């Protein structure tokens, strides 16, 4: 992320499309234009542009487990309207999703599929642990419930509540967007764990 002598290229920012990864090719039109814009205007950096794009259409994966899933569904409805964040497109396939909202208690039997879904998502990916059960096991401190999904996946944002109101989930989502736009890397990078 060097800003001094070399303008950062898209590949430095973790973008890994085929075009970007072809190292022998010079920067594309987008990169050149943004670099010129930076030199002229000196307002936005390339990283900020990428982070802005990532946060403005972060598509969640349909991972509703229990009661929190119902409140997650109601954030999509007209009153709370997740579509204004560009997030109403819940992808059924984890390959197409950016955000995993773990909503509900995770039984030990479900922890395997949860990790599988997380593994199938492509970087960059974020995880919101929605509700008390996903964050810490909630009121179920027993043999059956995983005491917090951060035991198996790296979590970016915990949203407390049982279940959290839709506004609370939206607060969590907005804070996640702010984190991304501030340049904080996703949790798997922060904790240096496998993705």
């Amino acid at each position, binding site marked *: 992320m060097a800003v001094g002598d070399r303008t950062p290229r898209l590949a430095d920012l973790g973008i890994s499309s085929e075009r970007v990864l072809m190292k022998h090719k010079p920067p594309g039109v987008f990169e050149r234009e943004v670099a010129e814009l930076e030199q002229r205007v000196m307002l936005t950096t390339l990283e900020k542009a990428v982070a802005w794009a990532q946060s403005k259409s972060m598509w969640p994966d349909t991972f509703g487990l229990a009661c929190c899933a119902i409140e997650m569904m109601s954030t999509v409805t007209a009153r709370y309207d997740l579509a204004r964040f560009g997030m109403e497109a819940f992808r059924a396939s984890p390959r197409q999703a950016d955000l995993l909202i773990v909503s509900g208690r995770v039984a*030990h*039997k479900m922890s395997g599929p949860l990790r599988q879904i997380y593994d199938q998502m492509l970087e960059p990916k974020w995880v919101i642990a929605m509700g008390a059960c996903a964050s810490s*096991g909630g009121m*179920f*401190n*027993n*043999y*059956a*419930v995983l*005491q917090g999904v951060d035991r198996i996946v790296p979590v970016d944002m915990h949203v407390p509540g049982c279940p959290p109101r839709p506004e609370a989930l939206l607060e969590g989502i907005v804070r996640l967007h702010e984190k991304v736009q501030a340049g904080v890397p996703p949790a798997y990078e922060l904790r240096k764990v496998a993705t």
Partner: protein
Amino acid sequence: MTSAFAGLPGFVEEKEGHGETTVIVERERLLEAARQLRDAEGFNFLADVTSADYLGWGEKGVSGYWGNAGGRDTNSPGSWGFASVPEPKSRRFAVSYHLLALRSEPKRVRLQVWCEDGDPVPSVVPVWPTADWHEREVYDLMGIVFDGHPNLVRILMPEDWAGHPLRKDYPIGGEPVRFSDED
């Protein structure tokens, strides 16, 4: 009505409480009793098959005095003293079948069998097909084996789980609660 239940195969006892009738039969004659209840008495609807583990029933006084899950001796000095310790039970496990005669004059009865750890109980799936998953759940969580069940495998816990969680000697699990001034 009392005479109808007294004629059940393997009849042991009939109890009334809170407006409900509990009929206890010997577990060896359970299938015959179930068939007679279904065909002759008209209890065509099996609402529930459930089990209870009475290990430690009344041993340390009633459960949960002074916030202690193990209970406390009600006769020791300083105890509450008024509660009576419940009567000990004959065996460790009780399997209860909640039956309903689904007709214009409905009737409910609880059919109960008692068994020890390791005693197999005949499966009532040939009598009421809905018992399938109920008995699997009882087997999974309480460890009671049902003879003649077509598919007795774990249903709620993962297939490779060891132990039967709802038994009284199975720990609650989870993680210990840590307080902020501890390390």
